[in-house]
């Protein structure tokens, strides 16, 4: 049957192409790793001149997810969103409350979520004296958000990731250095390179404590 042969040939070609991608990735992996080290994807000790004063700034964002390809249960959506918030530098006490329209354990076609979290921002010069206790050292860092670093990201998350970028990242003082345009294909997990202010890890490994109750 020629039609079946054509389908089989296309399928084989796709597999070969995927294998080719894998080979190419293996070939370039050391280079990519070296470049990522250079670009500051991994925490490094900063020069004193890079360190700035920062404070936690609380944010409230209403998030709406309208699924066309990937459906999440309410709990899964909350977890995904919380992990994405942590990936963009939110303090570890972020709260996400999804309001789902179908029963909570069902996959949701659309859901609203309330995101409440704190992220580091530059401490305003005028505020330093008023809130001296809340000021901590930080530095601008470029970080890569991808599956290699965040295991929870899956190819199916592209839709959610795009909504998150549009509704959350774009509203914050975060610079998107590079974003992946291949995400929609369904083969690749979402990825994005951003520049954010992160608490400075001192040589003693001390980080500012979160004010968690």
């Amino acid at each position, binding site marked *: 049957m020629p039609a079946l042969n054509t389908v089989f040939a296309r399928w084989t070609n796709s597999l070969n192409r995927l294998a080719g991608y894998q080979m190419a990735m293996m070939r370039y992996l050391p280079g990519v790793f070296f470049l990522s080290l250079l670009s500051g994807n991994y925490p490094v000790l900063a020069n004193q001149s890079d360190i700035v004063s920062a404070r936690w700034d609380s944010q*409230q964002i209403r998030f709406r997810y309208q699924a066309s390809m990937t459906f999440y249960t309410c709990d899964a959506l909350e977890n995904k969103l919380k992990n994405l918030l942590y990936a963009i530098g939110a303090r570890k006490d972020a709260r996400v409350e999804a309001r789902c329209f179908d029963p909570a354990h069902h996959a949701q076609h659309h859901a609203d979520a309330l995101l409440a979290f704190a992220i580091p921002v530059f401490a305003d010069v005028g505020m330093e004296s008023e809130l001296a206790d809340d000021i901590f050292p930080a530095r601008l860092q470029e970080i890569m958000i991808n599956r290699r670093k965040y295991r929870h990201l899956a190819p199916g998350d592209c839709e959610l990731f795009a909504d998150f970028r549009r509704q959350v990242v774009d509203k914050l003082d975060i610079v998107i250095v590079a974003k992946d345009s291949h995400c929609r294909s369904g083969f690749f997990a979402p990825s994005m390179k951003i520049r954010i202010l992160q608490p400075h890890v001192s040589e003693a490994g001390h980080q500012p404590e979160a004010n968690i109750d």
Partner: protein
Amino acid sequence: MPVSNALSLLLVLLCVSADAAGALQKCTAVSLDLPDYSADPIAGFKPAAAYLAEIDELKKQGIYSPALVPVLLEFGLLQQQNNAHDAAINYFTAAMLTMKVNNGLYHAAQLSIIDLLITSHIALENWQAVTDYYDKKYWLINRNYPDGNPAILPIIKEVRQWHRDAYNKQTGRSLQQHFTVSEKIYHQAMAVIERCGGTRREAYCFWHRACCADARPEYGVCPLDKFSE
């Protein structure tokens, strides 16, 4: 810290309205008619026994004598500085009750005392009480200054900030309730800024002081274009 300084600080918080008025040319900020405790020269704290004796003496004039208010506040401040916050709250509450009896239930003069109460409740981590007092502050401001006086902006901004910061605290409110109050205050403030001829930039700077001076080249540009909530 001398009592006069503490009271002055309190008033500074309430009187920063001048900044808001300066930016919004089309409106005249009508000064909030709040009691000026700093006008009463207080050199420093007296011994606790002296306050108690004075309070007893003043109560002979009537248990709600207006002369009691500054003494109760001063004694409350002394307790607050000694970290006796429960006692401080009792004296501040008594002062507020006395003020209500003399000036009326909804008089704006309570705003100054509410700030003192909030400080002590924060120290005790009574987050529900803190939220209640912030809500009361917001309600009092709207009752006393319903016409959108720009002088209210710093105060309602402070209330909104609390509702943004409170997400990780046991306030007895749902996240949805915090969002609702916060958004309500945001729209109210934006209406005042717009009515007073404030520009988009002034509005942005009002909410985000850290970025408005373009002093952050690291971010590329001050994200005024991102300004929508």
